[in-house]
Each structure stands twice: as C-alpha cells, then as structure tokens.
C-alpha cells in the first residue's frame, strides 16, 4: 500500500526530502510538548461546555431509552417475527466496524512503518475503545432479558450450565472482549510517556497526582524507553490479527446462519474491508472537527487526510466489489433462494436502503480520484459522513432484507424501528462523542512522543539546518 506522495526535486535529490513533512511549521520539540499539553492545561471554554452538553443530552436520551426498554421489554422496539434483529445488531456491527480503523492505524500501520499515522493513532485508538463500548451497549441491551446477559460468559456456576461454543454469538463474546481489552492496553501503553509529560507540565496538584498515577512512574529513562518500545511492538503484533479476526467473527453471526443473503463465504473479507472503510471515515469525520476546534492543523496535515482518503477510496472499492460479487454469486450459484433475496435487496421493500448503501459506499468515494478533491476539506467531510451513513445502511440491508423475506412466503414481514431504537442509536452516538470530547480535553490527543519521532530533528541523519521542507508546506 503506497500511502506516500512522491515529490521529486531533481535539483537537490540528496538533500531535499522526498516526502512531505509530517509536522508543519517546523516547531521545536518543546513547542510540540507545549502545544499538545496545553490543551489539557487550558481552560474549559464555553464552546466546549456547550458541545459536551449537547452530546451528553444525546447520551442521556439513549440511556433513558435503554432503561425504558429494560423495564418494558424488547417489544418497545419494532422487531417482529420474522425480523428478530434490526437496528440493535445493525448498530452493533456498525460500531464494531468503526473501531477497526483505530486498531489498523495503531497496529498494522505501525508495523508497516507508516509513520504518518503517528499524529492520528491516539485519537483513532480512543475512538476504537469508545466504539467498542457503544457496540457492547447495543449487544447487551438487545437480549430479551438483559439482566441475564451475563449468562453468555462461560463461568463456573451452581446451575452446571455451560455456554454453547457452537454459537457465533459466543465467538462474538470472545472476539469483542479480546478486542476491547487489547485495544485498551495498547492505547494505555502508548499513553504512558505522554501522561508523564502532562504530569510534568500541569500545575494543579490534583492533576499532577492523577496523571502521575496513570503514568506509572515513567521517568523517560533509556531503560523505560527500551521496554516501552518492546511492549508497544508486542501489542501491535497482538492487535494486528484482531483487525482481521474481530470483524470476521462478527460476520460469522450471519454466515453461520442458513438464510439466503447471510450464508455466504465472502462475508469475512468483505466485512473487514467494510470495517476499515467505515472506521477511516469516522476517524476522518472526527479529525476534521478536532483539527479545526483544537487547532491541530500543524500535526494533522492535509497529507494525513489525503492518505486516509486513499484508504477510504480503496476500501470503498473493495466493498463495491463485494456487492457486485454477491450479486454475481447469487446468480451463479443457481440457488433460487439466493437469487431471489438479492433481487429483492435491489428491487424489494428495502431497495431504498440498498441504493442508499451503494450510493454512499461505492459512488461517493469515487470523487477521490481527483487529487484536488481529495485535498478538499469540506468535500472529504461530506464524503466521510456519507460513508458512515452508507456503512450503517450496509449492515441494515444485510440484516433486514434477509430476515424480512426468507424461505416461506407465509412468514414474510416488514420491519421499521420505533422511537426507542432511534433514541438508543442517537444515545450511542452521544456516548461516543461525549467520551471523545472528554478524551480530547483531558488526555494528550496526539501522541507527543511519537510525533517527536517523526520530526526532522528526531532523525539522526537529518541536517537540522535544512529548511527546504517549509517550501513544500504551502
């Protein structure tokens, strides 16, 4: 995967950087520390408070709707027979998918030495955690008796009851929990040097204590850095297969089913590509906002965004290929059930959902073929939102179209959500945004240490008096 943009200057090929600089403005190391740590130290603005209030209200709406559901039963949702899953599992898969970008950026791009990731990995990882939290909220609340959802955990009990390891939902329990746990560790380990920096930076005694506690006595010694690098590398190694496995396992929820439209081998790669696609789109949405509000244009450059747009375009075409291949295989398989379900997807009761999905996921990212367009902030913001919408509709299409018309026409039905499900979805977005805002305020939103590593001065071979990169940074 080529994510760099080559710009060859024949006049001074040996001295000029062949890549765009990853940090603009040529700040000093101290500037970087001050710039990022000051976000933590700075005052809470009215704008920030208002934003948190709005997202917090969204979260409260969702929590209220969840309580309402738990008190009255899943019947307050629009689910029925035959559509046993609707927005609940759609949201679950969507959130899990969004989380994927974090792990991909943290782990895979790290192992591939894609150093442009260093400015965005922290927020992408945070996003992963919050997305997994939202996914867990959905999957726990979707059960009919939420207070017994812990029965999905295999624990020794006096009932002598054991879980069913043949069930993909059981695999989900392991996949999602592993994913959540590893992501949390990875994120936290990466945070330790920066928390120590903040500890040293902040003036409040309380804040010093708190940041000091979480920085685990980090002194920045060579020994610490040595162990840190090893640990980070190992965690990156552990996380890497999770990028592929988690969404593959989530896709098994469908592929292990025997229903036409679900029972298909293309799902694992297709779901992984879709997860990265949607995850990058969500990272994009958040970064565009964050770099504006927190004034991080210096660190999150247009180059970062452009690279991400390339990933979005590539994964978008992968899911587009998957859509086409699903259709082809449905025809080629000769199974009338399969054929019918795919015709129904495109032309049936949920055709609006299918075509929303195709438009947002396949058509919209095509604008990034143009370099000018993929460097346009407003446009990429719109596309990232469209991709988020499109990927939500992809999961909805898969779930609803397959369930509402399966084998026996006598049992066909139609599903539409109630206000409760919509509120819960809004609530998960609220929880996600609130947590992200809290994170952006109280945790170094950019990996200070890692950004320093990609600054010109960090390179032993780099001549510090070289100013050529400032010209490129226009």
């Amino acid at each position, binding site marked *: 995967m080529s994510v760099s943009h080559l710009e060859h200057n024949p006049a001074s090929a040996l001295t000029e950087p062949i890549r765009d600089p990853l940090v603009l403005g040529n700040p000093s190391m101290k500037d970087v520390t001050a710039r990022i740590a000051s976000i933590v130290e700075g005052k809470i603005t009215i704008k920030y408070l208002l934003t948190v209030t709005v997202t917090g209200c969204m979260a409260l709406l969702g929590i209220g709707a969840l309580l309402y559901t738990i008190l*009255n*039963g*899943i*019947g*307050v*949702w*629009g*689910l*029925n*027979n*035959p*559509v*046993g*899953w609707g927005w609940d599992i759609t949201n679950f898969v969507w959130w899990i998918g969004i989380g994927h970008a974090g792990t991909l950026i943290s782990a895979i791009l790290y192992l591939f030495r894609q150093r442009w990731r260093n400015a965005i990995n922290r927020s992408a990882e945070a996003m992963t955690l919050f997305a997994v939290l939202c996914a867990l909220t959905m999957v726990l609340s*979707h*059960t*009919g*008796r939420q207070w*017994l*959802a812990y*029965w*999905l955990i295999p624990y020794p009990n006096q009932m002598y*009851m*054991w*879980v*069913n390891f*043949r*069930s*993909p*939902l*059981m695999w989900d*329990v392991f996949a999602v929990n592993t994913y959540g746990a590893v992501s949390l560790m990875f994120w936290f380990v990466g945070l330790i040097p920066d928390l120590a920096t903040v500890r040293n930076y902040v003036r409040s005694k309380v804040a010093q204590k708190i940041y000091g506690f979480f920085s685990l006595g980090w002194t920045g010694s060579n020994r610490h850095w040595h162990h840190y690098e090893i640990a980070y590398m190992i965690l990156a190694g552990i996380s890497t297969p999770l990028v592929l496995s988690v969404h593959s396992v989530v896709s098994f*929820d469908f592929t*292990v*089913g*025997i*229903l036409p439209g679900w029972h298909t081998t293309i799902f694992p790669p297709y779901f992984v590509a879709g997860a990265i696609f949607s995850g990058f789109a969500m990272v994009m949405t958040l970064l565009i906002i964050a770099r504006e509000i927190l004034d991080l244009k210096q660190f999150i450059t247009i180059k970062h965004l452009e690279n991400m747009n390339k990933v979005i375009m590539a994964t978008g075409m992968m899911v587009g290929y998957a859509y086409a291949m699903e259709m082809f295989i449905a025809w080629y398989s*000769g*199974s*009338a*059930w399969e*054929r*019918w379900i795919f*015709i*129904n997807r495109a032309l049936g009761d949920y055709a609006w959902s299918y075509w929303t999905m195709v438009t947002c996921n396949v058509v919209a990212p095509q604008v990034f073929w143009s370099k000018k367009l993929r460097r346009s902030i407003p446009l990429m913001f719109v596309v990232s939102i469209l991709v988020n919408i499109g990927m939500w509709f992809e999961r909805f299409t898969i779930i609803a179209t397959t*369930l509402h018309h*399966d*084998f*026996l*026409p*006598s*049992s*066909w*039905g*139609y599903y539409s959500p109630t206000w409760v499900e919509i509120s819960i979805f809004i609530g998960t977005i609220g929880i996600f945004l609130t947590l992200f805002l809290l994170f952006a305020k109280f945790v170094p939103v950019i990996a200070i240490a890692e950004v320093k590593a990609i600054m010109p001065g960090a390179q032993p071979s780099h001549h510090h008096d070289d100013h050529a990169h400032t010209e490129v940074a226009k």
Partner: protein
Amino acid sequence: MSDRSSNATPRTTWQSLDHLAGDQPVGGEFTQSTSLVNSAVSRRGFMTALTATMALTAAACRRPLQHLVPAVHSNQTAIPGMPVYYTSVYSQGNVAYGTLVKTREGRPIKVNGNDQHPSSAGKSTAQMQASVLSLYDPDRIRRPRVRKGGGNTSYDNALTSIANAMQEAQSSGKKVVVLTGDHCSPSFSALQARMTEAIPNLSFVSMPALIADNPAIANNAVLGIDAELVPQLDKATVVVAVDADPLGVDPLALFHMTRYSKKRAPSKSNATMSKLIVAEAQYSLTGANADERTRLAPTQLEPFMACIEAEICGGLAIGGDIAATADGATKALAQKTAAALKSAVGSAVVLAGKHLSPKAHAMALNISNSLGSVGAGLAIDPAFRLPNSGAKGAAVKALQADLEQGAVHALLFCDTNPEYFADRAFRKAMLSAPVRAAINYYEDETANICEISIPASHWLESWSDAASFDGTLSIQQPMIMPLNEGIGSTYDSLMAIAKKVAPGFLADAETYHDFVKANWSGFLASAGMTGVTAWNDALVKGAVSVPVSAAASTVNMASASTLATSTVKSGMALYLSPSLTVQDGTYSNNAWLLELPDPVTKVTWENVALVSPDTAVKLGLAASKDPKALRKASGVVVTIQTERGTIDAPAWVQPGMADDVVAISLGYGRTSVGHHGNGAGVNGYAVAAGLQPTGYVAVSNIAKSGTSVRIACAQDHHTLDDGNGERPVAKFLTLHELAGGEAVEKTHEHFPNTGHDGKYLKPLSIVPDYQYKGHRWGMVIDMSACTGCSSCIIACQSENNIATVGKEQVLIGREMHWIRLDRYYVGDVDSPDTVVEPMLCQHCENAPCENVCPVAATTHSPEGLNEMVYNRCVGTRYCLNNCPYKVRRFNFLDYNDVLKQPADLAFNPDITVRMRGVMEKCTFCVQRLHEAKWHARDQGRARINDGEAVTACQEACPAGAIFFGDTNDPKSVVSQMREHERGFKVLSELNVRPQVTYLAKVRNS
C-alpha cells in the same frame, strides 16, 4: 357429577395415573423401605398429604371450587395435579357435539371431542376449544341487577322482579314472551312446554341471530319435513356446493369434516377420492378446499343450479324459468358439472347455500334425488334432521306484530341478543314491551335495554342435554359451579321464575338437574339402559343412542314449483355470512378466536369488506390489478349503503371472489360485550336484509369514505408464485398424477436449479448420526385431508398457554401461535386455488436454531425433540432468525401481564406461562409425552404404545390430517405414513432434516 370408569380400554378416560395403573403402586423407584421413622405415616406420605392439603386449602379460597372439591370430604377421584375427564356436550346452535372435558383441581381447562359421540367423533372445533376461555372471561356479567345501569341486587330479588312482571301481565291479560337462541336440548324443549302449560300467557320464541329458513321451507315443500337435513358426505363421491360452506361456517362443519376427510386421502395404490365442485361468489373455506372451484356472479348461482337440474332431471326440472337466465359460461359450467354428477349416480349430491332461495334448495334436492342420492342410508337421508331447525321467521314476525300492538307486557331474552342483530323495526318493537329482562352472558346490547339482567351460565357450568340429528343424546354436565356465586344456570333461573309465578310448578324438581334427570329416565329406557346406574353410565359414555323414528318421506316436487325464487339483482351486492372465527357474535369477546386468523383471509381481530381485484379497481381502491397496487387497497375504508342502513368497513382484496360482490363476516362490530370485542370490526347485521341476515343484499351505494385503517393480517398476500419463481414449499398434484405414478417426481422434485437428482437428499453429515435408542418422535401432516379449519391452532393455544397479543401486536407481526396454517394461492389472482400447509416446529435433526443459541437454551432431546428451555433463554432471538420455517415465537412483551382474574384459570397448570424476553415454540406437547410415559411406567412398560401420546393439534384435527408417534417403531402409524409416496419434507434441501413429513395435497381434477 359422575366420573368415567377406569377400565384400561383403548379409549379409556381416567382420573389419575394411579387410577390407570390399577392396583400397582405408583412409586416403584424405591425398592427398599426408605422410611427413616418407623411409623404408619411415611415421611414421603406425610409430605404428600401436606402438599395436597395446602393445595386444597389454596383451591378452597375460591368458593366455586370449594363446593366441588371440598377439603373436608376429599373427593377420591380428584387428586391435586391429576386431571379428571368428564363427558359433556357442546351445542353449536342446534348441532350437538359430544365432548370430553379435562379438568384440573376442579376447573375445566381443555375441551376435546368425545369419540363415543358420532358428530364430534373425538374431534373438536376451534370454538369448542375456545369456549373454555369464555368461561373464565372477566367481562361476563357477575351479578344481577333490576335497574338499568343500577347497582347489583340479590339473585332472588331479580328473579322475583321478573316473576312479578309476569304476574302483572297475567292480570292485565297481556303476553309474556321468552326469546331464546338456537338449541337442541330436549330437556329445554320439555321445560318450555311445561312452562307454557303452567303459565298460559307465556310463550317461547326462538330467535337466533342466524335465522335461515329457506332449507326448512324447501324441505317442507318437497319432503314434508320442516327441518334442515344433514347430508352425509362420506357417502358422497361427487359433491357440488353452490354458495354452500359445509366445511366452513356451517354449524355442522366439524361433523362434515370428519366424514368428508375419509375420502380425501388417496395413495397410488388406492387412487380414489371424492370430488368437490364449488361454484360461489365469495371465497369460502369449502371453496378453498374445492377440487374445481368457479366464481359465479350472485345472479348466476341459481341459474347454474337450474341448468344442472335441467340436464339431470329433464322433464322433472322445476327451474326452467331460472335456467333461462343463465349466461353462456354458466351453461357450459353446468354441463360439465352435470356430467361429473352423472358419473356418480347414487353418491352425488348438490348442496345449496342456506341463504339461497327455497326454490334453489328444492332444485338441489331434485337433482340429488334424480341421481339416486336421497333416501335411507344414502348421502341425503331424510331421517337425519337437525333438531329445532324448522322455519322460525313466521313466529318472529308474529311476535313483532304483537309487540307493535302492545300485546306483550314482558320480554325475557334468554341467550339471545336481538338488539345487536335484529333489524331496526324489530328493535323498535322490542322497546314497546314495558318490562324487559335479559339472562345473557354479557352485559350486551340487549341487556343494555333491559331493566333486569341476570347472568347466564356457561355450558361448562350447567346441567342440560342435547340431541343430535342422528338420535344420539348426551347429557351436558357441569364441570364447575357457576363462577357467579350463588346464581343458578340459565335454566335454573327460568325454572325458579316459573316456580314463583305458578306455585307448584315442577314440585318434584328442585333444580334443573332434577328436571333433566327425570326427563332422561324416559330416554334411557328407550335406549335400553335401565337400573340405578343408567344415568351414571350415560354420563360416563357421554352419548346414548336412541333410534331415530322418523316417518319415511319421499321427494315430491309437485308443490315445489311455487316456492320463492332468488331476489338477487344484478349490480353491486353485499354478501353476509357468519364469521369462521367468532361465528354469529357468540365469541366476539373471545381473545383466542379474535386473534385466530380467518382461515381464508388470515385477517385477525376484525372483519373486513372483501372485494375481488377487479372490483377493487372498479371502486377506485387500487390503481391496477398489479399485486403491489392491490396491496394498497387493503384497509381503505368504504361506505356501504343498503336499504337497511350504512356501514363503514375497511376493504380487503380477496383473490377469487366474484366481481361486484362485497363480502362481510357477521359477528363483529359489538358495542357492548367486553374489552376485547367492543369496537372490533363492523356490524354487518346493521345492513342485513332483515330476518335472515345471511346472503346477498343489494348495495345502493358504495364509495371510499376517505379514511383508511391498518388491518392485522397474519399473512401477507404473497402467493406461491409471487414473481419469484415457484417456491416448492407446499406441494400439490392431481389425482391423475398420483395414479400415474408421477407423485414421486412431483413431490420429491427437488428445488429447481439446485442440480440435485430429483430424489430425497441423502443426509449430508461428516459426523455419524445420533443413534436414537428409545422413542423418536415424528409427525406426518396430510395436506390433502387438511381443510384449514384452524381447530389445531386453538387446541394448541389452549393446551400450551399461548398468549394472545392484540391487534396492535399482530400488526407488527408478533402473534404467538405455535402452529399456524400457511395459506398459499396458486394460479391467477382472479381465481386462484388454495393450498393450506400447517406449519409448526419441524424438530429438525440438524436444527439450525440449536447451534446458534449462545447459552444452549434450545437443545435436542434424546427422543429427537427440539427442546426450548425457557429458564435458560436470554432472548438473543438468533434462533428465530435462523429458523427457516419461522415457527419460533418470541415474547416481545409480557403478554400475560394484562390478564385479569379469572382468565388465568384457563391456563394448563402443566405448562409454564412464559415471561417476556424468552423464546417459545411447539414442543410436540412434551408434557403429554411425559404423561404417557409415566402412565406406561406405572403399567410396567418400558415404551409407550403407538397412539398413547397424542398432541393437542392431532387430537383436535377434525379431518384427522395429523399423525404423530414414534418413528423408531417401524409399526407405528407415523412410521408407515412417512413412507407414503406423497410424502415430502418442507425445505429438505437445507439439510436441516425436519421430523415432520407432509403428504402433498391432491386435487381430484
């Protein structure tokens, strides 16, 4: 009250497992004495007694139970936890169906047919089953009152008030009239006779909702019999039904189904079956079962019969002038039909719809007679007459005249509700009676216009009897004291009133029980039953056969030509017929029946105005006949105006109906019955023709009202070939194909395009199959025999405590029925055929629901059952999604939470009542399997015999279409049926290996 003997005959009914086991001790599991204390009362025995005492004490909190199972004098036949079965008889109008009622702890919980009774033959209808729910209906009248809207009074006070009114009438020389519904009770007839004898100004008038005199008028003219005749469909090989619905709304439908189905299960070696030809304007259940069905305009129905008559009776035909009005298509159809009839001389009958004109009935008799099918022992035997089925219209008209002249002082309504169903003139006339009293089941429309109201009794609460058309007599014995404390049965109330008016009346009978018993001494003697045990023997058997001594009658068409002819005119017509679920309105507050999908339309909770696709387009309800456009027509409210009135009813497109006909079921649109029935549907009686509400009424105007409502239909309009290629899930073939050996190809034909070799798929598995050592349960459903009557659904609901969910939930698609009847249309939208496929859990060997449950809440039993563990279920609904048959039912809400006392008494105590958040589904009545196994163990048998374990659906099925048993036993019926050449498994290509085999439907065409 008497219980049945405990001889272990194949049809043994019994009070307890111990009882069945005879002398053998129950507890065989402790071979050595395990008593810790050497005392006469073992610890175990003490605990048993303690538990029983507590149970009885608890039960005794309810007064009615207290009388039946007194804790002090323990009823030796009532062991808590053990069912007791009693015989009784259920009367549907003037049709008697013998029943066997299961009671637990003194309360009836399940109604089955009595196999000793020829009409029910051990089978039951949905309504018989559902009547248990009506018994415990919280909306019943609880206490008498003597003022409109007034408070409660004592029973005696209410009776006295009526008696006083009767005495006032006597002194003023005016009449007292008791209006009753249909009945077939000889004792009630006797009581009526005794009362009118004792009180000279008293008269009884029978006024059921569905008066249909035309058959009796025709029979009177042709045969000299003022009664309806009961055709014997097992003696008919060709049946032509003209707008008749013998398998549907006819009160005799249960009887007809038990007989008709005998000729509907052909095999290759015996490729014979009867032929049912239906010509009708609406789409009846009989039409859905027809081998050949043609839709005819209402004006062509009688000409069609007349043409057949002309073909068959020649010069003896009486309908020459009617035949002249037949159009070309009708004539051609009549010729074809006549040819089919002629091919079955001696066993061909023509049945005319009850609403058709007397002349049409006479023509039907003429045709059947000319074909040699009328006579003793033949398909139409003039000896088989429905009791009290003579023409009733004249008496009602006379009463109306009396009322209008002010000659009636007191009007007593007894199980009849004319304020709901009668026409406006009669209702107005009723108000002229100064004193009105009602002994009705609900505080209904009629009770609302009465000063005095006394609760009526349920058939499970009162002594009575019933006579069947074939002379079989049954005693209706109560299972429970009247739930309305201290209030006698309807008949007791009448008797008590008479005793107050005429002192010395029935001095030898203190209660109606005494009166019935006294009446029965004569019946028992004529049946050859004598001695002190005769009454008890009759109760135990539930049916006593008294020979019919009808005078021979012969067909004489001489006076038939003057009979009235059809008044149906061309133009838009409204067709009214009783509901297939709530009937004439009797069950319009019964949640089970309201939620039961109409067997034809699948609409629940209300009635709709059915129109054909073309009519929908003509009325502007749909833009075109495209299925999607037609779907939009459903629920659009139309205003229908007849000369009697106007109603607003939601339209529903019914494929296969005749054009320019709007069909509406009666029995809905109640305003005062209870919280389920009030406001459900529209009242068709309001636009009915008058005294005889069923049949055609000219529509003077019909137009969209501008509003529309959502209709809770349990199945959408999808036909089998709804634009998606044929889905071979419900297979069918013709008799010729069966005889020609094409059955195997037709039914085992694999799913098209999957490239299999046209045979059953060999089970694909990489692991060896589980070896079933003991029983392995399986089912066979004969789609050819199944008529779609839906009795199985209610039987299952009653047996398994299945909740009703209400219209709003059905609209979302959350009905809970464990067995449903999938109805598929085959053919074009104008005149499709119907295939009904009962669908329930298939207990797949490779159950796709089992492997996806994360908590192992659904597992496979060692007897091949797919089991659902409610306690373990956390409700992920993954099993529901992955079930290809969509037979799993999720408790989205706490559907049982809304039940009011005493509705919960209808629950089967053997079955858990499920809470919200858990999945449920058919268990193959696992509780019955266990009961049968205990029973076998008590008799020292390791296995239960074939036929000992019967599922509730199988037990009820009037057509005998369901077979259940041990497929590990090669000799069992179910094992043999599984090998039938018509057998196929639904969705077998999925390799889920279902344990329910279907036998393809065969059409004799």
